[in-house]
């Protein structure tokens, strides 16, 4: 990551193990948070670093300040009420910080 981008990163709010809820928002435009996880609660597995926001890059803007990105794990049976599979099955997704809020 370039020096200037590193200097312009937003501070990380979440730590590994934090429970987070994905905001239930449905804007138009180039969004990389899949619809199926919005409104759902997961656990932060990994801090992936901070990256320029792809929602802004899609409009040829520079996407800065860089947004922290998290790998979040969701229980499959929490994502889908009709989930058929193991109780420990999960889906893991990378989600940008501005889509996440703390969950109890």
């Amino acid at each position, binding site marked *: 990551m370039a020096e200037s981008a590193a200097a312009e990163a937003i501070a990380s709010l979440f730590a590994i193990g934090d429970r987070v809820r994905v905001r239930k928002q449905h804007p138009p435009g*180039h969004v990389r948070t899949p*619809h199926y996880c919005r409104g759902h609660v997961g656990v932060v597995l990994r801090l992936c670093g901070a990256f320029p926001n792809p929602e802004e890059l*899609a409009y*040829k803007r520079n996407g800065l300040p860089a947004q922290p990105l998290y790998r979040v794990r969701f229980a499959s049976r929490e*994502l889908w009420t009709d989930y058929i599979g193991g109780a420990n099955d999960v889906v893991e997704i990378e989600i940008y910080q501005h889509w996440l809020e703390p969950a109890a």
Partner: protein
Amino acid sequence: MNDPGHRHHDLGGRPAGRCEPDDHQYEAWEKRVDALVQLLNGRAKVITTDEMRRNIEELGPTAYDEYGYYERWMHGVTQTLLQRGLIEIDELGRKMAEIEARERHG
């Protein structure tokens, strides 16, 4: 009725049919589309993958469903180049017509 808040390309969790594992061989022009996208988005950074994806996502449900993968990529990369002013619509139209004429008579 399509839910406009659930964008068409955002497929995770939607009902769909059986997966058909296949060994599709790509045609030469499809490989060249792939190469074009990698070159423009790579070191050259002439376009960004994000712009290209946005343009593909804006195709609309019918086109998104009907057009093949590299057809969508070609749409996406061309729209991005047009938006950035790296090619112009008139010259593109003339060039495509020229190519079509070449193919008919060649």
